[in-house]
């Protein structure tokens, strides 16, 4: 579904849910959701250790159903704020939502996460794909990584500050290809989520010297909750486990916490 739009007579589009209309600036948000606020308040009070404090982390400890609905409210509030209201009015909208929830016994507080955390790196599963690496090396005999000797249309040329930036940001990758050691190239790609290969391609945060900005976990969690509130089948999805990952995730049945 596409948040913020009303699509009529459009059967093939799945997961249609009530959404905010662009012309309804004063639409009472709570009327759009199938939420029993009193039940929500009672559920929340019984689940969280600090009843008046709802941060993403303690929302995650409440029941899935409650968390889901609560996050849907926050998500659609943010959708409303970001899409339909000028930036200058966002604080007003936020106060409105905060007050609305406060009258029902809930309080929103901003959580500031600072600092860096060290990540444990785990190996992927299976063997590195040396055939794929050989194919990549063969590719580079025809295509220069920066198109320096390939005929490229002017708008697609990699030059100037972009070239300098790319050479610096992807130096290990470039050097590994230049050396042509298949095992070394494979190892670099096996750990792609933990090194420079993912730079510019990952939406949540990057790892430097084994450490990641703690804000990244919040970015992951926000994304998780928001997408789950729109597409419930996101709960069933996990990326492939062939390569080692990091980020926000979950295990069924418990397990050690890394951070």
């Amino acid at each position, binding site marked *: *579904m596409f*948040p*913020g739009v009303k*699509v009529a*007579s459009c059967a*093939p*589009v*799945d997961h249609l849910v009530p959404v905010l209309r662009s012309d309804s600036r004063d639409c009472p948000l709570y009327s759009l959701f199938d939420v029993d606020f009193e039940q929500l308040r009672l559920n929340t009070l019984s689940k969280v250790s600090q009843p008046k404090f709802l941060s993403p982390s303690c929302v995650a400890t409440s029941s899935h159903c409650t968390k889901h609905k609560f996050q849907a409210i926050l998500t659609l509030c943010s*959708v409303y704020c*970001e*899409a339909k209201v000028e930036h200058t009015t966002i604080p007003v909208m936020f106060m409105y939502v905060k007050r609305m929830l406060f009258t029902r016994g809930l309080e929103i507080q901003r959580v500031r996460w600072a600092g860096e*955390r060290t990540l*444990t*790196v*785990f*190996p*992927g*599963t299976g063997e*590195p794909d040396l055939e*794929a690496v050989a*194919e990549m090396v063969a*590719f580079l*005999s025809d*295509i220069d990584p*920066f198109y320096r000797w*390939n005929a*490229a249309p*002017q708008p697609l040329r*990699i030059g*100037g500050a972009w070239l300098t930036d*790319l050479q610096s940001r*992807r130096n290990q*990758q470039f050097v590994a290809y230049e050396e042509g050691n298949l095992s070394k190239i*494979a190892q670099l790609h*096996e750990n792609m989520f933990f090194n420079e*290969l993912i730079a510019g*391609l990952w*939406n*949540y945060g990057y790892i430097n010297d084994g450490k990641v900005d703690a804000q990244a976990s*919040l*970015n992951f969690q*926000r*994304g*998780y909750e*928001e997408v*789950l509130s*729109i*597409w419930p089948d*996101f709960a069933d999805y996990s990326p*492939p486990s*062939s*390569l080692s*990952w990091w*980020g926000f*995730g*979950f*295990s069924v049945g418990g*397990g050690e916490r*890394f*951070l």
Partner: protein
Amino acid sequence: MVFRWGGGRGSYKFTDPWHFAQSKLVLNALNLAELGSRSCRGVLEIGSGYGGLAYLLANTPKVETIVLVDIPLNLLTCFYFLKRSLPEGSNVVLHANQESLEQSKAQGGTGIHLVPSIFYASLHDWPGLDLVCNFASFSEMDSETVDFYLRGLPESASVLLQINSNKPVLNTGNHTEVPLDNFTYPSKFVKIYEGPCVPSDSGKSRYKTTIHSLEKTSSGLTV
């Protein structure tokens, strides 16, 4: 269920909401395109990223052709990821020259094709690339580069889906973001949808989602 933050593998399920949301948008946009009557099963993604979207789409029966265009370093990262992540025997082709592209076109073009951006013009007559998408990279390009891509959309494209910045906030000193409302879209396309970026995680509040469609396709919709 225990939520976790860290690195690992195996029984722990890590998440990637950004690409999951993109895959849903793509599939729904394909469904919208099909309201124009014909079957739509081909996707061209300009900016492959690490292959997160392609991996998801490859696991849906609806999508038969995925063409990924990017600069070589990204394309190689994407290629290795897909080769390691998709089942053995999956049709993932890394194109190093025009001849290889022509051969794939002649064979109908199904599978996943990774194409260096310098060969973009050769995709003009690739059959069945119904949907073209770009997520968070057009606005990081120069205007002339975006124009180049939009002018050269494949003939078969009927839907353009994107999430990009609409405010010139990011300024790296040598480049300022190009708002998506300032792009020059082909005249045969009309905007049928505009909404927020999902997920709207940090740094993306200035981003928005738009869908442009051929006029004939969009005529069946009420938006």
